[in-house]
């Protein structure tokens, strides 16, 4: 690959000279007032001059607009363009909206045109003028037979994309799109307008009904229409892939026309490539169906042919534009092959891999950049075969890590990060560390974090891990965040079995012996020597006193925070080695009056500890217990944030197992039942349930026009169905709370500690609008709630059009023990009837619970202690309890966020332990939590549910929750 002969940086554009000099009449070419204004601004000597000139002009325009007497059409246009120009220069323009509105409503095209452009720049979503403008736009959309006006209207709707506009006009836009009379120009704009719309209001299109329209549009011969339709289709498919599966043959047919037959109107040849954009869109669409190649359909062969042709026939071209276009298609084809993965064609996969290998070693920076990016997607998608091949490129990738261009370096770093595993971790981490020495600030922080994660994840030995982190600190200590070195402490503290602690103590002693040790190293050293210094105190030259000296030499140079850590280390040494007490005492005494409050407090406390007697001191200054490993590593959270920043919704990334949500799921699967993911993935995940509330659900509920299939089961106010939906939601993070032929209420909930975020989605499933739609949530004393509600459904009520959805977000914090779930009443009126459904929100004591794992002795001990605060109930279930059912019970226990205590269980019992967090504070300001134990015993077709907690009300609440869930089994 050669660097382009035609440099994009050339001084003038080299496109062929136009044969015509089109003199479109534009307002700017005739309006001398505007021309003068622009010239004045260009001649302005300084920023102040310019802003003075603009202020003067704006004042002039304002007075013209407010003066009585009408402005001529020309004046209006001229002034509005001046406003637009000033706006573009960055000045605030907060008036003239009425004139814009009147221009839009004008019958003259020239006025309309100016009006629409100004509108899409000056008016923003949510502007009060929007409502006034809607009718003008509607007239242009459907009322007029003027294509040009319709086009303008569609463009401006898409550009402004205010929610009001969308809601008011989406029906009209759909009508324009499918109208048989629409010209291609109008149609392609309508398609994009609709795409913008469904991105904002995903439920405004009933997929089942709309698919046939799309297939009609795909038979259009106009390339522009096809490209826009494909954009729309991709937008639709990303939400409901099953609904649009029938479009696959159309897409492949178009693709084969472009790729195999190369038949396209000459206009759409872009540097001799037949409409690359359309090819890309088609391939993108196909990526939503990863099992496509395995489906055995007739079109698979055609698709394979197309892909092979793209892969083999792409030549290196001397025109940069030709080469860009070809490579754009090629990269998309490679991505498609990557998505198909092992179900696809093996030869293609190999060829794709070979090409990628070539791309990441070329000099042309764009291609290399994209090659690295595509390869890292590949590495995450298919872990085995491809990863082995990717590993062979390690040295090439490392080379890119040294590129001058930060964009390329970042991609190389990403790739190295994902291609790392047990076998090559050491060499990759070594490479990264070597490079870190020379790396610039822009990328260092990211590198340090990634090295730390890799070192922990693929550590061959714990010692290597600790050494790596220490190297990081010594090379780039400033970039090492606290969470990284805290993690070292956690791992060292929790590994008391082998000689790790001793090893680390020795290492830290050596590191801190140097006067130049980094402050973070000193922090680690202080902690480690304070905790584990005694392990090496017997060795020659490392006695307690020497250890103290080694640390203390850094004292003047470190920050107060680290001094605090060191002070604690001194206190621990004070306890251990009697001989150094006389040296340490004066330090504490001196700090008694430190300006730093923290140091002052610590020194005072430690000083007094000594006088309280050896027993108390020893007890308090004992070694730290092992850390709670239940917590997700803060490091990973940091990385998650990093990831979420760079994340997008490309089809790849959605499957990226490294992405935060999925990663946390898989990572914690071994150790920690994180309810968020596991509950979903474990017992019978019900995709329909998930889909039920945010998107028009696919199979079971069908189009909005058909009454849902499940309707018979859920009749109006059927208490059994309501109870069962409620029970289901107690152990799952999302689902449908209530549903009948009028309304569907979905819930998505997320709890962390004492806090929860609950999203309610109430959708109008009927054919007519609801007025006075309200979601009433009476205040309860035990929850502190804040509500976000854009439509006012929780307040004065709102109107809900058919297929529209009201969304409400509730942030709730438990502030007291309680047992009763808070209520939610859904009320609305249709033209004939008034509806009212009293429901309960699934916010129960177990929602705020976090699992606790205890051993048998601890469980039985607490069980005995809490006997007085017991709540018990016996319930009958529909069938005899068998081992399979007991497994479900165990899964429920995890679903309700209880840690199972298997040691105390027989085959017919199931016990668990959890702690309910509240935001209330006790006397010392610590949050109050309520320890909960629960035991479920089966006998025949009966369950006995016993809950014992620190608080009788919670006992009752926990018992009731479990009974409800068990009944719904």
């Amino acid at each position, binding site marked *: 690959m050669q660097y382009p002969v035609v440099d994009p*940086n050339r001084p003038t554009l080299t496109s062929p000279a136009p044969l015509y000099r089109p003199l479109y009449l534009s307002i700017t070419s005739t309006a001398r007032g505007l021309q003068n204004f622009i010239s004045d601004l260009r001649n302005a000597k300084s920023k102040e001059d310019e802003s003075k000139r603009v202020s003067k002009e704006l004042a002039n325009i304002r007075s013209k607009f407010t003066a009585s007497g009408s402005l001529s059409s020309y004046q209006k246009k001229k002034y509005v363009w001046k406003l637009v120009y000033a706006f573009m220069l960055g000045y605030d323009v907060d008036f003239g909206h009425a004139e814009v509105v009147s221009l839009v409503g004008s019958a003259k095209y020239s006025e309309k045109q100016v009006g629409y452009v100004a509108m899409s720049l000056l008016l923003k979503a949510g502007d009060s003028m929007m409502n006034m403008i809607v009718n003008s736009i509607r007239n242009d959309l459907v009322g007029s037979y003027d294509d040009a006006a319709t086009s303008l209207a569609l463009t401006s709707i898409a550009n402004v994309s205010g929610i009001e506009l969308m809601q008011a006009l989406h029906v009209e836009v759909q009508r324009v799109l499918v109208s048989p009379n629409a010209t291609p120009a109008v149609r392609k704009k309508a398609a994009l307008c609709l795409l913008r719309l469904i991105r904002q209001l995903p439920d405004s299109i009933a997929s089942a009904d709309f698919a046939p329209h799309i297939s009609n549009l795909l038979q259009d011969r106009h390339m522009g229409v096809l490209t826009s339709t494909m954009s729309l289709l991709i937008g639709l498919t990303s939400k409901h892939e099953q609904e649009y599966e029938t479009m696959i043959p159309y897409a492949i047919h178009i693709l084969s026309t472009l790729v195999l037959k190369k038949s396209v109107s000459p206009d759409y040849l872009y540097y001799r490539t037949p409409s690359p954009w359309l090819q890309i869109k088609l391939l993108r669409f196909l990526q939503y169906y990863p099992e496509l190649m395995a489906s055995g359909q007739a079109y698979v062969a055609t698709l394979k042919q197309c892909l092979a042709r793209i892969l083999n026939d792409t030549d290196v071209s001397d025109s940069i534009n030709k080469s860009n276009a070809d490579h754009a298609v090629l990269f998309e084809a490679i991505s498609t092959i990557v998505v198909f993965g092992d179900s696809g064609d093996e030869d293609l996969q190999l060829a794709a891999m070979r090409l990628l290998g070539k791309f990441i070693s070329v000099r042309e920076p764009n291609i290399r950049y994209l090659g690295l990016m595509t390869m890292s997607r590949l590495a995450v998608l298919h872990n085995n075969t491809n990863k082995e091949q990717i590993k062979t490129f390690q040295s090439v990738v490392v080379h890119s890590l040294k590129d001058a261009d930060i964009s390329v370096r970042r991609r190389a770093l990403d790739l190295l990060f994902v291609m790392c595993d047990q076998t090559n971790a050491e060499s990759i981490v070594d490479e990264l560390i070597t490079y870190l020495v020379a790396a610039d600030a822009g990328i260092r922080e990211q590198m340090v974090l990634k090295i730390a994660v890799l070192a922990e994840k693929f550590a061959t030995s714990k010692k290597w891990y600790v050494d790596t982190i220490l190297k990081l600190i010594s090379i780039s200590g400033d970039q090492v965040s606290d969470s990284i070195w805290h993690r070292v402490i956690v791992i060292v503290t929790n590994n008391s079995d082998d000689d790790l602690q001793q090893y680390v103590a020795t290492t830290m002693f050596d590191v801190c012996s140097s006067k130049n040790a980094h402050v973070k190293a000193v922090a680690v050293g202080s902690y480690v020597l304070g905790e584990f210094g005694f392990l090496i105190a017997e060795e020659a030259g490392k006695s307690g006193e020497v250890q103290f000296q080694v640390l203390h030499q850094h004292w003047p140079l470190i920050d107060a925070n680290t001094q605090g850590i060191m002070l604690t280390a001194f206190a621990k040494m004070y306890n251990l080695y009697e001989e150094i007490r006389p040296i340490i005492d004066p330090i504490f005494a001196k700090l008694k009056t430190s300006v730093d409050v923290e140091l002052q407090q610590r020194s005072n406390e430690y000083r007094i500890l000594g006088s309280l007697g050896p027993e108390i001191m020893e007890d308090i200054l004992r070694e730290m217990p092992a850390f709670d490993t239940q917590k997700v590593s803060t490091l990973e959270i940091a990385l998650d944030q990093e990831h979420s920043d760079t994340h997008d919704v490309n089809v790849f990334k959605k499957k990226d197992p490294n992405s935060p949500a999925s990663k946390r799921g898989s990572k914690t699967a071994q150790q920690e039942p994180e309810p968020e993911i596991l509950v979903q993935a474990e017992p019978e995940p019900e995709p329909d349930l998930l889909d039920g509330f945010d998107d028009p659900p696919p199979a079971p509920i069908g189009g909005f026009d058909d009454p849902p299939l499940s309707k018979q089961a859920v009749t109006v106010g059927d208490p059994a169905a309501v109870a069962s939906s409620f029970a289901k939601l107690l152990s799952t993070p999302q689902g449908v709370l209530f549903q009948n032929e009028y309304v569907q209420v979905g819930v998505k909930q997320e709890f962390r500690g004492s806090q929860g975020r609950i999203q309610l989605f109430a959708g109008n499933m009927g054919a007519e609008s609801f007025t006075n739609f309200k979601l009433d949530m009476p205040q309860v004393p035990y929850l502190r709630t804040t509500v976000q509600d854009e439509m006012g459904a929780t307040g004065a009520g709102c109107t809900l059009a058919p297929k529209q959805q009201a969304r409400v977000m509730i942030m709730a914090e438990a502030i007291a023990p309680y047992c009763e779930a808070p209520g939610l009443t859904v009320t609305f009126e249709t033209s004939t009837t008034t509806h009212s459904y009293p429901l309960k929100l699934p916010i129960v004591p177990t929602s705020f619970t976090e699992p606790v794992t205890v051993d048998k002795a601890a469980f039985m001990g607490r069980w005995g202690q809490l006997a007085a605060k017991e709540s018990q109930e016996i319930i009958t279930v529909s069938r005899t309890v068998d081992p399979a059912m007991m497994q479900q019970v165990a899964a429920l226990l995890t679903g309700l966020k209880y840690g199972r205590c298997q040691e105390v269980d027989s085959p017919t019992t199931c016990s668990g332990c959890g702690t309910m967090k509240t935001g209330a504070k006790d006397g010392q300001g610590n949050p109050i939590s309520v320890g909960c134990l629960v035991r479920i015993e089966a006998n025949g077709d009966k369950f006995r549910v016993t809950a014992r907690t620190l608080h009788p009300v919670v006992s009752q609440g926990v018992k009731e929750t479990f009974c409800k869930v068990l009944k719904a089994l």
Partner: protein
Amino acid sequence: MIKAVSKTCRIKRLLQILLFFNRSYLTLRPLQVLIINNHGLPRLQKYFSPLPPSHTPPTLTRHIFNSIASRPDSFCNYLNLHIEDWGDVKLIYRHYATLYFVFAVDSQESDLGILDLIQVFVESLDKCFCNVCELDLIFHSDKVHYVLDEIVSGGMVLETNISMVLESVREQGKLGKSSLRMGEGKQNDVYRR
């Protein structure tokens, strides 16, 4: 029909859906179009989605310009930029003579495809203005907007065919002209300020 959906696949889809929830705001972000000259003065700035309150178009444009202008032309045309309160955006830009054409994109469009789109935009302007230069963009900013409206609509790629774009712009020009002739007889006073 491709109904053979394995269990792992179902779980995968669930994860996809979850991811969608978490990042739905990202899906909403269409591309943004900027033209900035070598001195950082904006010649066109069209943000298709509302900016976070901490930014205004000028400050954001300045920020984007600063991060791009420091890159030599031998570097690749992509830059990931972190914008506070807005997350990461990918900038795809080309540098022509005195002007930077910058598209800030999400992942819905192909990276190289956008590079080509910039070329289409520039060539369209070139044909429209007959060897376009910076002054044309300054004094005929309305025309630039009309051309852009034919290429990008609502932040999404609308048309990629140069002759089609020019055709539409020319049509509109004609319409505007004829409506002028019909409407106002007295053209004389329009030149007065």
